[in-house]
């Protein structure tokens, strides 16, 4: 998923610079220096020389978890300097497969794992070394809410791809092991965004996306693997077909879904498609579209411009996604320890609170709660009206006191998840059909 990823144009340059010095040469240099120094007897402070190695992690991800504030705070708390390499989800995946040595820590989505794990380019993390692992929300580990309610498991649900059979295995394990593909960090439930001022009536079903009433004013994402999931939600909502698994369609099901989308396109239903965060914000803010697939922070961005926009809960539920951390297969030794230190820091609360305040959810709720004010927790997580003005992580005003979050509480939103972003077995066929749909 391409979350706001254009924020850091200089990252590729930065990463290019650092990849010139590999960890190995750094160590060699340090060791040589140590030998020389101890040999000459000038310096006895061996640990001092070791700690002179800068604590740097090259961090490849989509921008969801990459805030300058997170980087600053991490440096302050742990002394680890994060070098962000920001790209769209597709580009992150491409980079892992083609240049696995160009990053240390990987922040990516669970659905990409179906491509990444068989490629053998990522290293699973050891659950035993993750302090908060047992406190990670059961959404990831068991597929249900903390209150026990089951969550929809269609698509690439995180708990299906969370564990590996062994340290170097390329096969997902059905039962918990200590080898975790991605240590979860953040997730959310996506739905349609609407302009209530232009629609002027309640919207309650995914079917409305293809309602001819909104002809020429609807939009969908032009990211095949996510767009087709939204289309599948619509197909089921209109009662035309019920999928066994929306996230893993058969060829016939793909044909059926694309046929419906194509018919709508030919009838002029869509104003435009979007493929990045800013496009979706602009379409909605300018009134070109009144109903479209959208991400929660994009809705917030429209609202910040003073334009009414709702992240509309729908009766069929949400399409969810989740991301987490693992490391490149090239990482070992001291660098790997550093990666564990970083992941442990990330789950320790500050970063979780930061993400929660953006409207996402933190993987470890207990630590995030400790880092948030009670009124913030009540607004973001419990679905209660805001006692005070709600501010974003950067201190900007998001909502006035008294407002209630769209979709309500954590339990209401995550409890209504119908499916997860997915890579299908028939991905290749789906991509061809998607091209056909665009050409229609």
């Amino acid at each position, binding site marked *: 998923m391409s979350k706001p990823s254009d924020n850091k144009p200089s990252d590729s340059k930065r990463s290019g610079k650092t990849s010139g010095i590999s960890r190995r040469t750094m160590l060699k240099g340090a060791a040589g220096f140590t030998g020389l120094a101890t040999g000459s007897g000038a310096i006895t402070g061996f640990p001092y020389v070791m700690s002179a190695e800068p604590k740097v992690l090259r961090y490849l991800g989509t921008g969801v978890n990459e805030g300058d504030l997170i980087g600053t705070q991490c440096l302050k708390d742990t002394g680890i300097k994060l070098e962000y390499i920001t790209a769209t989800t*597709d*580009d992150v995946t491409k980079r892992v497969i083609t240049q696995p040595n160009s990053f240390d820590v990987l922040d990516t989505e669970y659905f990409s794992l179906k*491509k990444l794990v*068989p490629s053998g380019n990522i290293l699973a993390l050891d659950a035993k070394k993750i302090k908060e692992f047992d406190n990670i929300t059961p959404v990831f580990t068991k597929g249900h809410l903390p209150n026990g309610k089951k969550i929809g498991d269609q698509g690439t649900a995180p708990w299906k791809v969370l564990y590996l059979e062994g340290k170097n295995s390329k096969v997902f394990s059905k039962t918990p092991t200590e080898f975790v593909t991605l240590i979860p960090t953040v997730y959310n439930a996506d739905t349609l965004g609407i302009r209530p001022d232009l629609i002027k009536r309640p919207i309650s079903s995914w079917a409305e996306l293809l309602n001819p009433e909104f002809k020429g004013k609807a939009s969908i994402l032009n990211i095949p693997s996510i767009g087709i999931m939204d289309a599948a939600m619509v197909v089921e909502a209109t009662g035309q077909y019920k999928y066994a698994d929306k996230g893993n369609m058969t060829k016939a099901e793909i044909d059926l879904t694309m046929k419906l989308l194509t018919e709508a396109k030919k009838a002029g239903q869509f104003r*435009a498609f979007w493929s990045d965060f800013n496009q979706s914000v602009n379409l909605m803010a*300018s009134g070109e579209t009144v109903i479209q697939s959208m991400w929660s922070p994009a809705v917030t961005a429209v609202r910040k411009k003073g334009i009414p926009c709702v992240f509309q809960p729908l009766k069929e539920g949400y399409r969810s996604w989740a991301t987490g951390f693992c490391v490149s297969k090239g990482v070992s030794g001291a660098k790997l320890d550093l990666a564990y230190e970083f992941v442990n820091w990330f789950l320790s609360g500050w970063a979780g609170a930061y993400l929660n305040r953006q409207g996402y959810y933190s993987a470890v709720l207990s630590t995030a709660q400790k880092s948030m004010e009670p009124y913030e927790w009540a607004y973001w997580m419990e679905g209660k009206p805001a006692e005070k003005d709600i501010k974003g992580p950067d201190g900007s005003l998001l909502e006035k006191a008294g407002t209630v979050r769209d979709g309500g509480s954590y339990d209401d939103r995550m409890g209504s998840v119908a499916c997860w972003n997915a890579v299908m077995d028939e991905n*290749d066929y789906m991509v061809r059909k998607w*091209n056909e749909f665009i050409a229609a």
Partner: protein
Amino acid sequence: MHQSSVRRNVVAWLQAGPMALVFLAFFLIPLLFVVIVSFWDYNDYEMLPIFSGRGYTDTFEGCLQQLPEFCTILRTYGSTLKFCFLVWSITLVIGFTVAYFLAFHVRSKSWQIGLSLLCTIPFWTSNVIRMIAWIPLLGRNGLVNKALVEAKIVNQPLEWLLFSEFSVVLAFVHLFTFFMVVPIFNSMIRIDKSLIEAAYDAGATGFQTLVNVIIPLSKPGIVIGSIFVITIVMGDFITIGVMGGQQIASAGKIIQTRLDAIQFPAAAANAVILLAATMMIIFSMTRLVDIRREL
């Protein structure tokens, strides 16, 4: 005599050498790799170096069964060719007119240079920014629609102004007319003015002079400008994406979707097809005019 011609030959090779090496290293060899990879097989996450025509057969999937309807790839190329033709003819007319004005109506050299520099001003910002600048102008609630509605020319905002074939062609013309102007202007200023006087003296009308003297002599410029415009439009997917609201297919977009899905051999196959199509167009244009002879 013989020795000096050998020496001249060696010097010529040395002079051409660096460029030839750059061309070989950064163009021909990568291109060769693209062609090789286009015949590989692939799965979800890697390329398999096994000979396979799958990239091509998948691309032309259903082309025979769907006849007389066009399959995806043919429809895509059909629409790309349509854009090519529209953009080419509009930029040619505008570009020719501008070049004509600069070459024959502007008398002073310094004004000619000044005015042609003026044409380059839009190039001081990036393509994408110049494209995006159209969006608030053409949108449903954009400036143009507001003006039209307020002037009571239309009752409802015009929908086809933005995210349509119209907006794509408009952006292309806006972005690339200059590539027509420069080569045509370059050809025109080299036309001997006495030829025009001779035509005038022989009793030709302005139109006859244009058709029989100026256009034939501007041909190399026209062909070079056309090659610029056609190659750009054939390969473009950003302009078509942004101005067409991502709803219009282009050959470049197919390649991009394939790359995003890590289906590199299929992407390479599409790149080879695109290259072949573009080469065919350019080849037939150079058949019409022998640029080397005319230069």
